[in-house]
């Protein structure tokens, strides 16, 4: 083993570094309490089936690519124009529907069924 050079030490003057019990215990108990709160915590995020997502569902969505953003919702595709005679009318109706479409009432929601292997 290679020895690392060090300045002379004086064990007698060195701090023992003994930790107090109560700060550590208080933080540990606080951690347990916060975990308990988290396990019972309903978030402000809805799921795609209309319920409110639990915190565990939100975290699971992070790892499975299940978080949906309203800003990313694609508009429905234009209708297929099989009937050429009515094509202009169909397209016009579709454009009006798009113009009158209400923005979604949510900003973000969780799809608990998605299982993307690697979201990033």
């Amino acid at each position, binding site marked *: *083993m*290679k020895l690392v050079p060090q300045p002379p030490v004086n064990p007698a003057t060195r701090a023992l570094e003994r*930790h107090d019990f109560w700060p550590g215990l208080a933080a540990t108990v606080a951690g347990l309490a916060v*975990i308990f709160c988290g396990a019972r915590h309903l978030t402000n995020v809805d799921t795609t089936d209309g319920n409110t997502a639990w915190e565990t569902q939100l*975290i699971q969505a992070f790892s499975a690519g299940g978080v949906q953003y309203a800003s990313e919702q694609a508009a429905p595709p234009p209708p297929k124009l099989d009937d050429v005679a009515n094509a202009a009318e169909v397209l016009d109706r579709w454009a009006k529907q798009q113009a009158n479409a209400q923005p979604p009432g949510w900003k973000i929601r969780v799809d608990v069924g998605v299982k993307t292997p690697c979201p990033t």
Partner: protein
Amino acid sequence: MECSNPNHRDWQPSALGRKLARLRPYVQTGFLAVWLAPLGRWLHGIPGCVFHCYSCPLSAFACPIGVMANYAALVPVVAEVPYLLIGCLLLVGAASGSLVCGWACPFGFLQDLLGKIFPRKISLPGWVGHTRCVVLVGLVIILPMVLGYRGIPFEKQVISICRLCPAGALEAGVPYSVQSVLAGQAWLMSGLKTGILIAFFAAALFIHRPWCRLFCPLGGLLALFNRFSLFHLRFNPQECTECNLCRSRCSMGVKVDQTVNATGCIRCLECTTCGAIEPCFARPQKTGATEK
């Protein structure tokens, strides 16, 4: 380099230190059974306390750093308090500090194994450990939040901790890319991430635990608890022979001769082999009791 202090020549490792040094690889191996999904993916709703990518096909828990970055990116849209994440880190940190880094983290264990290939190592100064806090604040919290304010979801952010993480590259990128290649398709992992993984492997051969020492945001966070955690290291002046071996045993570059509960420590407990440093749990002191 030969040490000028002759005390080390009579040195015998302490019985406890010997036992802990022998035990550690077995404990690290045993913890793999916890992190590598024996119970299935349903535990992905709970953040773990070690560095292990949640996209790994075998991961049991969610990666706390990935969860933290995702929460940060959500702040502009919906401000949620990550109770489970805070609770897990607070519980583990307050109880044991960075003990999980040295004894339970699978990514640390991998680096320990890689480090055994070439015994000679490049030594890094202790201050480099502060870059972990920069990674934590900059890359895990601020950057996802700023890009989130720009309307970019975390999964679409071009630069993020998950896109740069070597653990993610190894545990998720490689399996899925190999699967893709075997199916006759392209290598899925980006060139940047592949390069990071190669650089990580190369660094782990010549630097002891390079990720833990330089970049690990989780280790940087847990190490902040080392100052007051229930489990800690204690210095026993009666046992100290000034042999200089505690510092020499430390592969993380911690100045153990000055302080043992430092933020650079991963609590591998190698320094306890000198006998003057003892692992212990804090206990309530009786009124009027004095320190020995």
